């Protein structure tokens, strides 16, 4: 049962902090959590062959219907993508993070790794490959790993509640009350 852990990263800092007063009048802050996964693009190498796939950061987003690769990330592995034509006269227009984008549909093999140097085998992933250029000055979007047709297919995603505040392997990594892991059956 290969398995990886998925840490929760808190991206709440500076002007993105949400502060509020609770019912007892104490000021509190809201952690803004991301499920961070590193991905390997391409099929797993055969036994004994060198593995030159580079771990790339991505966000596991179960609220995203499909996996989405922004242009500035997929351009470096364009030759790994099999393009799949849309049927009929559909407009290849997608939406993520409140932004509309043009895309092409394609399939690419994606493996997943965690910060503890473990991996899950690569699986074929159906994804939207964004074709829009992000204007200078605007933040570059991350790779989103979506709910269907992606690295979650046939696998178990588990959220384990915990009161252990810090990770036993990485003491600076906070749990935020949850340990996540993704495993093959």
């Amino acid at each position, binding site marked *: 049962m290969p398995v990886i*852990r998925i840490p929760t990263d808190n991206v709440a800092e500076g002007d993105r902090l949400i502060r509020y007063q609770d019912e007892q009048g104490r000021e*509190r802050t809201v952690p803004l959590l991301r499920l961070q996964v590193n991905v390997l693009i391409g099929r797993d190498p055969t036994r004994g062959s060198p593995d*030159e796939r580079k771990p790339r950061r991505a966000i596991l987003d179960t609220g995203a219907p499909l996996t989405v690769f922004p242009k500035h*990330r997929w351009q470096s592995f364009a030759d790994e993508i099999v393009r799949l034509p849309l049927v009929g006269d559909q407009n290849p227009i997608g939406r993520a*993070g409140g932004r509309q984008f043009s895309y092409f549909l394609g399939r690419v093999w994606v493996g997943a790794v965690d910060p503890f140097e*473990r991996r899950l085998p690569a699986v074929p992933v159906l994804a939207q490959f964004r074709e829009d250029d992000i204007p200078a000055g605007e933040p*570059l979007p991350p790779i989103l790993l979506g709910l269907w047709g992606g690295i979650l297919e046939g696998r178990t995603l588990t959220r384990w509640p915990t009161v*252990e505040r810090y990770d036993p392997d990485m*003491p600076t990594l906070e749990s935020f009350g949850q*340990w996540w892991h993704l495993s093959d059956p």
Partner: protein
Amino acid sequence: MPEQLEPPATEVAAPPVAGDVAATGATGGSVRELVDRAPEEAGEAVAANEKAWQAALRAKANAEPALGKRLKAAGLIGTPISSGSDFLWDPDDVLEVGPVQKEVIRDLNWGQEQFARGAFDAYRGQLVAIVNKTVLGVGRDEGQLVAEAVAKTGVAPHRVAIFDVDSGEF
């Protein structure tokens, strides 16, 4: 409900509650200041504190197996995850990444630590090229960043870690 236990007999300060400004002293927090000033010492203090709590809980669990089961089920204790756990997975089944990938992951982990400390705040929404815990470039073009890092260090392109700094938007 999780089992309620007395704190360990040894003097151990409870870690501050996540998001509890009162526990950290002020908005922005003394903990953050401590991390900025001395990140390694802060990490060690947290780890030592947490380990003491865990050791006390595990001692109770070992003495009373029935209590131990409830503590595990409640998530109050657990053996270190990477070394295996009977309620998570068998460590013998784990697939490891290759040696170069391990180096890239360590650089990405380092990038994550810098991000958590606020050291990458100026780079939000951009890409950072890292090799051996050294920032070699910041920009928006992955190919260009990799080429520059290769030219500076002589490493293979797949050895260059590209850390995309989260913009914090959601």
